[in-house]
């Protein structure tokens, strides 16, 4: 928690500000969302780290994927992720986004989310408790410090690959590709 070290602020305000003001997209994708309200209210109070749930993805920079992802929800997740402004981080809860979890052989559950949108971190636990979420957030701080939380950069560099995966699952997408040649 190096929020009060002025030196770091002066050296790299953008990164520090990103670390200590996570605006979370309040969009429940799976069963884990039930853990988010207790973490932002009185008992665990995420706001002390600057974490507030925000209504629109436009204002957010952290995207929590809380649980298994069905093909229908995937379309909404991709669209919301693409609507978030650039330095954006994704954290997935539980094992379902990693390898499909207990729905590993279900005919309409995504087995690994990382193919479709870049995921910066996973939090173990079927569904992780609020303390686990905070630990995840602290790890995310470290990743940002080490510039390892570069999901959005990966998304932009090989967007063609991501897009192909998405089209392979969802068929013809009805929103234009986010990065065409000129605004890469």
């Amino acid at each position, binding site marked *: 928690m190096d929020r009060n070290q002025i030196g770091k602020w002066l050296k790299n305000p953008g990164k520090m500000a990103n670390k200590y003001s996570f605006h979370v997209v309040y969009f429940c994708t799976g069963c884990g969302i039930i853990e988010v309200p207790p973490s932002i209210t009185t008992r665990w109070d995420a706001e002390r780290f600057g974490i507030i749930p925000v209504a629109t993805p436009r204002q957010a920079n952290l995207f929590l994927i809380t649980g298994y992802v069905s093909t229908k929800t995937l379309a909404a997740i991709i*669209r919301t992720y693409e609507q978030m402004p*650039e330095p954006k981080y994704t954290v997935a809860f539980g094992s379902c986004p990693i390898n499909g979890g207990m729905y590993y052989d279900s005919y309409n559950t995504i087995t690994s989310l990382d193919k479709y949108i870049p995921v910066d971190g996973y939090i173990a636990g079927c569904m992780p408790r609020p303390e686990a979420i905070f630990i995840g957030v602290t790890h995310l701080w470290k990743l940002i410090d080490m510039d390892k939380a570069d999901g959005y950069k990966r998304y932009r560099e090989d967007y063609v690959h991501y897009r192909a995966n998405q089209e392979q699952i969802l068929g013809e997408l009805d*929103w234009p590709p986010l990065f065409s040649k000129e605004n890469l």
Partner: protein
Amino acid sequence: MSLELLLIIAFSGAFLTYLSGKISSQLRDGVAVLISLGLVAIVSFLYNVQTETVFYQGFFGISLILRMNSLAWFFAIAIVSFTALCIIYSLSYMKDCERSNYYYFMMLLINASMLTIVLAGDLVTFFVAWEIMSWSTFLLISYNRNGALQAGIKYIVLSLIGSMCMLVGILSIYTSFGTVNIADVANHLTPSSVGYKLFLLIIFSITFGIKNAIMPLHTWLPDAYAESPSPFSAVLSGMLTRMGVFGFLLIMYVIVGMKTTLHLGRGFLSFNTILCWLGAITIVIPTFIAMLQNDAKKLLAWHGIGQGGYMIVGIAFGTSLGAAGGIFHTLNHATYIVLLFLSVGAIEYSTNGLRDLNSLGGLFKKMPIAFFGGLLGISGLIGVPLTNGFVSKWLIYKTLILGNAPFLAFAALLGTWGTVLSVYKFLHNLFLGQLPEEHKEIKKAPLTMQIPIVILSFTIILFGILPGLPLKVINSIIVAAGFQALDINIWGVTSETGTLNMLNIFAAIAVFGAIFWGIFKVARKSTPVDQYDNYAAGAAVPKNKYHYTVEYYAPFYRMGKPFLKDIFDMFYNRIAEAIGSICDSVRKIYTGYVGSYVMYIVLFIASLIFVQLTWSIF
């Protein structure tokens, strides 16, 4: 450059345009534009010329006079320039309409008659020109056939009532003083009784109230504006309805004289307090009715009535600041209401006739100039600082507050906030928001439509930042009317009870605007995005269904709907039906049987003889 020559050019110009229209439409357009611009040039040459010429003696020996003074010049330059702009605008608006010769003839005829009204030195010329203006407006309002006919009849009946009142007023002056010359009447009138002055004021203010659409007499205005062709409704709302204000100025300041009008009537019930309160009501109620309208031109029409209230309050309050505010507001209102009607006309032209507020949207991407004009027009209407509306409203508010009439000031300020809401609905539903699919390939407004819009927007900003230019002329008007002068400088009004300096407001906004525009540019570049890449909770944006317009202020509608009906309109319709039924019953007298006719004759004789024998009154 004598005044008669000016009027001869104006009237003959109208006939010339009609005739040249017979030859070819291009020639007619050229002649019409030439004449209107020529008139603008001539009138601008007549700046602070004080002449008075008798131009005709033949009418019952009354000498008909044309005089030019600062008040006349102020209105004349406004009339001629707005009509010129509207004619340039209608070159393309009326390109393929039927009977366009008739349209141009009527426009120039109305322009000429308005000029004569303003230059009239005596009441008979004033009345003759007033009548010519009324019936030619009637003919032009009913130009758009079906819906417009009802609007035309309603207009002509009300304006006939008005002109008849004025005729009685003029003739009672003529008979009691023997002269109709406005200057002589003014000094003849001072010694006469208060009752007679009150009678004259009431009669004349009925006429000018109908024309300027003060609250109880306003019912003709919404239909007339909505149904007439857009360039004409621009002229109609811009200058024609403000002839009522010119009339009020004439009767209250020139004829009856400013000092006497202030003390007419006892205490609270004095003439100009009642007029102020009528003006205040006219500000508030129409502005909130405007919010409910779904037709763009109806909404602007109701605002025309509302803004008319400001002018009346300004003029009727009786202080020099108020009068200056009222007169300046007349000019300002004319600029931005003409601009708004022209931009609505541009939309009407490119979406061939569609002006329903619920089915348009997002046009600012396709028609930038019309949008630019609309934006500046509504900011003028609200009175946003840096526009001319702000300066004149500021003058009016200052008079009301410092003239310790807080309730009037409250009504005026409330009117402004009502304007903000309804005018924003106008801009939002027409220009902003989602562009519907069928309007995807709308083409821009043609050049002749864009020139007037750009010129008018420039004048709004110019008079907003440098109000000194028009205020100097207005200052000479109110001095001529007997008020003490305001010390005007180029960028505002300086007085010990609060100065208005538009320049430093402009400088502040410019500086801060530049700073933050710079910061905005320096910060990370933002990626442009299409209107369908929008936040919709993860879903795809449905086409044609994602623009919120119907019942824009739904909560207020539910609360205000029962109170915001136009009760006067319903009342007048009931009177019209009553008269119609009386007429039918009266016609029944002519039954069609010869027997009853002969019986009438015999009864006539019998009754006469009986009356003579019993009371012998003959």
